[in-house]
């Protein structure tokens, strides 16, 4: 991707083709566990349909010599109120091996949903997942240190959910400013 | 063993280099940098010597573009409320009363010659909240809202940080409001298209309770 902004208008930029090639390898290995490839020019992604396979997919993506997604740039939690789901979006790429990059989405139920933790695959996911839990409230199965990170431990509610109502008082301090 | 001695040697030489540098600065202390502004051609002339400025007495001049205290020229303000909407921190509070037709001349025009159509009983800027982003300035259609380069405007009482630019006192505002109501009532009877305009005053009282500490600005104005 030479200049993402300028090429964004093209039908299928080279960067998206690279992502597609990477996706095809994953699709070949995991079949129906992953969704179709979304070839949008700004952030090509696919979704993990079978959430239980997420750690396997992650390990495969990291270790397979054709993929080598060893660098997790970002893991963001997202709220999908219309679908009654929460999700995470991981932006992955490969440092020192390939030039491809791809985004992966994993979704779970809005209430009490859980996503397998990939902090054993990419250490950086540890804090990102803690942040996603802190802000959205999905649990990450197998997370080594599953606590809130930015909000206080006894904070109620998950602030970035679309239906979040801020608590009136926190330890006697009035919260809404 | 040679590493042991080379360690001592590099230690001694680098310490000596460092000490030479600080000593040079010590002897350069007779010179001073001065308070030339960045737009001064001599800004980078004096490179050695003390660079402290004793602030209230000496100061680097703020560039004219400087984005510090918000100032509103109320005479040019047409009450479009774009700044209020654009402000990310909601530090601008505006209340408008539509000008009745017979008052248009009294309300006056902006310096650009545009007819003003709103009285502004309340135009408060809480400069303590303001984060000087300049977004309000960029949306202002008449360029009456500006960030002035005055950077130092601290107050002992935080309430004094709320600047009132409104052009009507409270009593005048009540009168204007009543006048508008009367005119509207008269019009409502008259025409059907006035009904649409008649909703405006009904909506207006709704945001009114929001600036609850309304007596405060009045007392401040009285104090002025």
């Amino acid at each position, binding site marked *: 991707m*030479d200049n993402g902004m300028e090429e964004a208008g093209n039908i299928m930029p080279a960067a998206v083709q690279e992502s597609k090639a990477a996706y095809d390898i994953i699709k070949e290995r995991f079949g129906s566990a992953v969704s179709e490839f979304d070839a949008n020019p700004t952030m090509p992604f696919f979704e993990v349909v079978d959430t239980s396979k997420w750690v396997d997919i992650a390990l495969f993506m990291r270790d397979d010599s054709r993929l080598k997604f*060893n660098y997790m740039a970002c893991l963001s939690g997202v709220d999908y109120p219309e679908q009654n789901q929460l999700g995470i979006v991981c932006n992955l790429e490969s440092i020192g091996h390939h030039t491809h990059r791809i985004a992966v989405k994993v979704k779970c139920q809005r209430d009490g949903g859980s996503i397998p933790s990939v902090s054993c695959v990419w250490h*950086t996911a540890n804090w990102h997942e803690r942040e996603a839990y802190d802000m959205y409230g999905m649990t990450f199965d197998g997370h080594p240190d599953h606590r809130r990170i930015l909000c206080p431990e006894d904070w109620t509610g998950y602030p970035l959910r679309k239906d979040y109502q801020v608590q009136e008082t926190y330890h006697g301090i009035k919260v809404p400013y | 063993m040679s590493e042991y001695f080379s360690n001592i040697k590099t230690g001694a030489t680098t310490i000596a280099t460092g000490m030479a540098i600080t000593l040079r600065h010590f002897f350069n202390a007779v010179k001073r940098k001065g308070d030339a502004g960045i*737009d001064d051609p001599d800004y980078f002339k004096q*490179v050695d010597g003390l660079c402290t400025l004793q602030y209230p007495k000496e100061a680097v001049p703020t560039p004219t573009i400087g*984005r510090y205290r918000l100032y509103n020229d109320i005479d040019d303000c047409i009450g479009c409320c774009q700044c209020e909407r654009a402000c990310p921190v909601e530090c601008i509070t505006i209340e408008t009363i539509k000008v009745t037709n017979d008052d248009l001349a009294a309300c006056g025009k902006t310096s650009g010659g545009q007819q003003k159509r709103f009285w502004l009983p309340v135009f408060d800027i809480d400069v303590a909240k303001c984060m000087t982003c300049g977004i309000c300035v960029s949306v202002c259609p008449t360029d009456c809202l500006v960030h002035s380069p005055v950077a130092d405007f601290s107050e002992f009482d935080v309430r004094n940080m709320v600047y009132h630019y409104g052009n009507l006192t409270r009593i005048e505002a009540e009168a204007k409001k009543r006048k508008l109501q009367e005119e509207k009532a008269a019009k409502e009877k008259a025409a059907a298209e006035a009904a649409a305009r008649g909703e405006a005053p009904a909506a207006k009282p709704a945001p009114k309770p929001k600036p609850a500490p309304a007596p405060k600005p009045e007392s401040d104005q009285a104090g002025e």
Partner: protein
Amino acid sequence: MQELGKAELNSTRIIRQNDNRVVIEKDLDTEYMVLSMGPQHPSTHGVLRLECITDGEVVVEAEPYLGYLHRCFEKYCEKVDYPGIVPYTDRMDYLAGMNTELAYCIAVEKLLDVEIPRRVEFIRVIVSELNRIASHLVAIGTYGIDLGAFTPFLFCFRDREHILNLLEWISGARMLYNYIWIGGLSYDVPADFKKRVAEFVTYFRPKALELQKLLTENEIFVKRTKGVGIMPAEVAINYAWSGPMLRGSGVKWDLRRNDPYSVYPELDFEVPVPDGRFSDIGDSLSRHLVRAWEMDESLKIIEQCLDKMPEVEGFNSRSAIPKKIRPKAGEVYGRAENPRGEVGFYIVSDGKSTKPLRCKARSSCFVNLSAMKDLSKGQLIPDLVAIIGSIDIVLGEVDR
């Protein structure tokens, strides 16, 4: 020698020695001490809190606690329209506002698909490189303070002051610029700006050399940092380290080269990585050196930009800014190289609203700091301070 028994309570061991004598060995009663370092501690660079479990001077484990400066950036983003977020991004990494703004604007511009005037691109690069130098000066200066050297810190701040003056001259603010706007700049640069920046470059080169002699080459400084907090390249990548931290581990990875944006592809600059001559690769000294070298590279970039920047008569820096910023529905992950590493913005737009549905900031310090627990194991307390300093955290960005 054979161990016969062991009492757990006060680590008493009963040992039969080779000559059949039975000896009861009792260790000194030692206890771990929990040391709460921060949030008000001189070397935690703000309000980081480290809960250290220490065995004498040795840190057994250090657990970082964040959130003391959490200002709900992401929640704000859902309330504020796209241009209104820019001033908030300044406040994330308040030492490198321009770079963070640039990252955010790149992300939104990707969604909007707008053409940026060339002059704007060059000005953007100049200001963000100036800001990078300013940020590295703070990093190097405070690192000196962490290790007990006060004077370099003030020299750094003296030079940073010139950069802040330059940036105030063009943007109107010293630290929180709101200068780079989506699709343009808030103002064009003043007429003398190019000249003054060129003067700054000539002014700064000898000062950087002096700083290097005073601090970086000092034997005590080298001894304090060399071999401290070594991070192997693979682990660094796995922790998603970026910027000088990752390059300090010997990985030649710079978004300006590897995911080029703006006019960086046209510019000639090196991506400095340590080669093991001055430091052990991956240690604190490497990270410090990378920052020092990067300042030189930034100066080079600025000089080239000054040469190449097109002069346009009556240039309007806001010409390409869309009237109403309402991107089409989609998602984007846009990023740029901050002085501390990769700053990315993941933005979801629903295509209807002028406010983003979701705006996640991937802050470089947050990610870099997450390795703290691993890095601090078994270090001395002074080394812990050296490691925190070399990570160069800005708590505004960690907590957002």
